[in-house]
């Protein structure tokens, strides 16, 4: 008997004995979702019936002939009431659902009728519908009378007789309706099926100390992963399969009244069911391996739950794509994890899946699953992950611990806390910053930078109890740091320019925004120049640096250098995105990378502040000095050729200055495995 099989059988036995798993594997998919569907439909229908049962009170005001009043009175769903006072107020106060204001017949032989209703009330909308129906009937009567008077045939006013007819067979329409909901549900159930077992079999085992027991038996790590992961994947597949079956049955037995009413017929071909099931397998493998690999990095059930929940949320988005109208399944979507599967399910249910995209979905999902498996296997082979508790305590304390613990020397935020903080600040800046700018203009920008970036960053460090000097790299850069910063920024700015120019071949240039920006940075008087330098160079150099090269860099510093720098650049670039354009992303990300590296090397935030100041200041000066503006004004032109070799030299020199020489360290121990997040 091979070892993984022994592990698998035992894990399966234990998992099935867990009531929680059974609940998620059988009860939820088989009973809960169909039951929810039926119940929610019943509630909907009940509500509709209740609405229709009672006649809607409507009123007719103005020049209403007796004929119309008679029609309204005889209409079944309507009850005519009289409105005293303002009809609009009456509709608003819900004492009447809709009011027809009938005017006098005009010279052209047409009579204006205004129907007042409340678009935010179901009752009012129903009244309006009924009232419009009566008005239509009245119009037809009037028309017929006119035609008769002139001796014209009834078809005279109906030159076209349009009948539209769907070519879709009832089962196709049924598949279409099902294809909207079911793919998401299947993906969710598969994920849910993998979620708890994965946490239980990885983090749960660590928490209960059984992993250590297991690893004293002669079991290769690969077999442990294999046994566990097959269990998780199997449960996920079974859950999804049961759900699939149960949902199809629910639709087919016609329990759902709405599908009966619409004449929908739900019958998914056996071939489609088999294909759906086949695709579910790599999907379950993907989730199982991903969740296992992540959960094993956590030391407790709760921690794993916290780590996995965001992933769960993140997966929902691509899974939901097929629900949105107008998004077609393309080869591009086929290779997007989860989205491809979801789309493929939809097409299979509608009955027109094509072979190539299907194969693409299957292959890409298998590939992702294999990668996830590799990721999980690596985690299980890593002693720091499995027994990483020792020596890793100080890095782990989160932001909330800090709230309780007060400041501790040398404590810096952990990467997660830092990234969350920056994300929060970015959202704050995005919404309130824009409002401030709209209301206060340029001063709003100044206020936003200080109030929404600088102050929150200081508060975060303060409240979190972090070591201010270490987190924010508050050290003198030294001559070397300053010199390196000067050289680097001298090289990086022209490169940013080059990137900006190159990307115009791919991205549309938002001319209006550029013009607005140019106007903003162009100073006509010395006083204005000083203000612009304060607003656009000094302020960001302090406020943005504290957030990005302060908190973000300080919190992520214990990752690999290239990760720290890349993350910093991407976040910094993303911060400069806007609804209108992505054109600022790449150049800013590049600058963010260079500045982050310089701050990391020099261990001084002032290096970053200096570089930021010089970059932004240069732009203001270039725009404001007429002679220079002539030279550099056109964003559509490449940077002057002579500048590039100079920039390259400057960049290389800057890198050399900052890399050479001893790197100052804190003498802090770097626990093994602390890179693993």
């Amino acid at each position, binding site marked *: 008997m091979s070892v993984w099989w022994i592990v698998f059988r035992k894990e399966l036995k234990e998992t099935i004995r867990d009531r929680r798993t059974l609940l998620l594997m059988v009860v939820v998919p088989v009973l809960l979702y169909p039951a929810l569907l039926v119940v929610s439909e019943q509630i909907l229908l009940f509500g509709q019936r209740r609405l229709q049962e009672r006649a809607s009170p409507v009123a007719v005001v103005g020049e209403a002939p007796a004929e119309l009043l008679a029609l309204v009175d005889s209409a079944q769903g309507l009850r005519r009431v009289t409105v005293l006072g303002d009809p609009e107020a009456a509709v608003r106060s819900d004492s009447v659902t809709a009011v027809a204001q009938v005017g006098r017949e005009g010279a052209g032989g047409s009579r204006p009728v205004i129907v007042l209703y409340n678009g935010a009330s179901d009752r009012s909308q129903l009244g309006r519908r009924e009232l419009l129906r009566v008005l239509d009937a009245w119009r037809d009567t009037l028309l017929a009378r006119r035609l008769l008077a002139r001796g014209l045939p009834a078809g005279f006013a109906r030159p076209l007789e349009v009948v539209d007819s769907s070519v879709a067979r009832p089962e196709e329409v049924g598949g279409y309706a099902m294809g909207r909901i079911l793919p998401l549900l299947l993906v969710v159930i598969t994920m849910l099926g993998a979620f708890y077992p994965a946490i239980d079999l990885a983090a749960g085992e660590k928490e209960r100390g*059984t992993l250590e027991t297991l690893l*004293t038996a002669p079991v290769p790590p690969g077999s442990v992963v294999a046994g566990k992961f097959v269990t998780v994947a199997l449960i996920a597949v079974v859950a999804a399969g049961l759900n699939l079956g149960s949902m199809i049955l629910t639709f087919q037995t016609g329990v759902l009244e709405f599908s009966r009413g619409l004449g929908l017929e739900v019958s998914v071909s056996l071939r489609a069911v088999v294909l759906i099931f086949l695709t579910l397998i790599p999907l379950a493998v993907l989730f199982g391996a991903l969740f296992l690999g992540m959960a094993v990095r956590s030391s407790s059930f709760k921690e794993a739950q916290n780590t996995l929940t965001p992933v769960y949320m993140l997966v929902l988005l691509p899974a939901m794509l097929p629900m949105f109208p107008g998004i077609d399944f393309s080869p591009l979507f086929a290779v997007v994890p989860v989205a491809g599967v979801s789309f493929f399910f939809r097409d299979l249910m509608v009955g027109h899946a094509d072979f190539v995209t299907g194969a693409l979905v299957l292959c890409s999902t298998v590939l992702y699953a294999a990668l996830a498996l590799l990721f999980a296997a690596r985690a299980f082979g890593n002693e720091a992950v499995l027994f990483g508790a020792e020596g890793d305590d100080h890095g782990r304390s989160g932001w909330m611990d800090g709230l309780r613990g007060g400041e501790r020397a040398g404590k810096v935020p952990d990467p997660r806390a830092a990234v969350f903080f920056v994300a929060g600040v970015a959202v704050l800046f995005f919404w309130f910053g824009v409002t401030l700018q709209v209301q206060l203009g340029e001063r709003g920008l100044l206020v936003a930078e200080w109030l929404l970036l600088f102050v929150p960053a200081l508060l975060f460090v303060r409240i979190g109890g972090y070591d201010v000097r270490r987190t924010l790299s508050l050290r003198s850069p030294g001559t070397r740091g300053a010199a390196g910063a000067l050289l680097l920024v001298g090289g990086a700015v022209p490169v940013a320019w080059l990137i900006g120019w190159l990307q115009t071949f791919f991205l549309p240039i938002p001319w209006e925004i550029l013009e607005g920006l140019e106007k903003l940075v162009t100073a006509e008087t010395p006083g204005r120049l000083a203000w612009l330098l304060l607003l656009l160079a000094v302020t960001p150099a302090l406020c943005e640096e504290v957030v990005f090269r302060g908190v973000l860099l300080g919190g992520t510093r214990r990752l690999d250098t290239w990760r720290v720098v890349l993350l910093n650049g991407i976040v910094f670039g993303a911060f400069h995105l806007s609804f209108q354009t992505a054109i600022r992303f790449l150049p800013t990300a590049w600058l963010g990378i260079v500045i982050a590296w310089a701050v990391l090397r020099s261990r001084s935030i002032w290096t970053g502040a200096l570089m930021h100041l010089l970059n932004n200041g240069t732009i203001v000066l270039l725009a404001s000095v007429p002679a220079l503006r002539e030279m550099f004004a056109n964003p559509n032109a490449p940077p002057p050729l002579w500048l590039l070799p100079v920039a390259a030299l400057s960049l290389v020199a800057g890198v050399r200055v900052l890399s050479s020489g001893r790197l100052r360290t804190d003498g802090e121990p770097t626990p093994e495995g602390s890179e693993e997040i």
Partner: protein
Amino acid sequence: MIRFHRLTKRYGTLTAVDDLTLEVRPGEVYALLGPNGAGKTTALRCLATLLTPTSGSASVFGADAVRDPLEVRRRIGFIAASMGLYERLTARELVAYFGNLQGLEGEQLDARVEELVTLFGIESFADRRCGRLSTGQRQRVSLARALVHDPPALILDEPTLGLDVLSGQTIYDFIVRERARGKCILFSTHQLQEVELLADRVGVLRGGELVAEGTPDDLVARTGAPNLARAFLALVTGPEQGGAA
């Protein structure tokens, strides 16, 4: 034979075990004594292949912990207070599972499990799930689990931690019995009473280093202390003495 040869384990700049060399012969009980944080657990985990040493080696009857971890695991039974039992397996299933992982199958496995169930007095709760067992009962199941493949070497990391006198006695009986059967037994503790009761030889760890080694009487004699407790105190608190004897 259990052997540590110049074994060192570092976590970053922290050296948990520093250049440890020692041997445990068949039929011998060796106690690794030291205060909390002295490196006892780390050393035992390196031997049990749960951790990889930074340098040096640990081996069990010639099988090296780094080069041939699975073979080492076949030759040792490892018990630690931190180790848990699968709560949703019954005691019998748990022992059988580990027997299975150790390569026992079919009737041979069943026979071995029954033998251990009797040996450790597990009969009355053999079919109860481990999650519902008392601490003492769990301890017995753990012992049965570690002994299921009848390994020639036993490693016990603070085996009596958190146990009452009665359960502690089970462990003592177990150790004495297995010594009589010729096993190499290495256990860590900071309880001197256990050392006096069981150990043929003692090694004292301090800050990851083996600062003294010998029979309990040796240690008392060498330090000039009136008893083992004082000797131990002198060794782990006093000024650094010459290395291991």
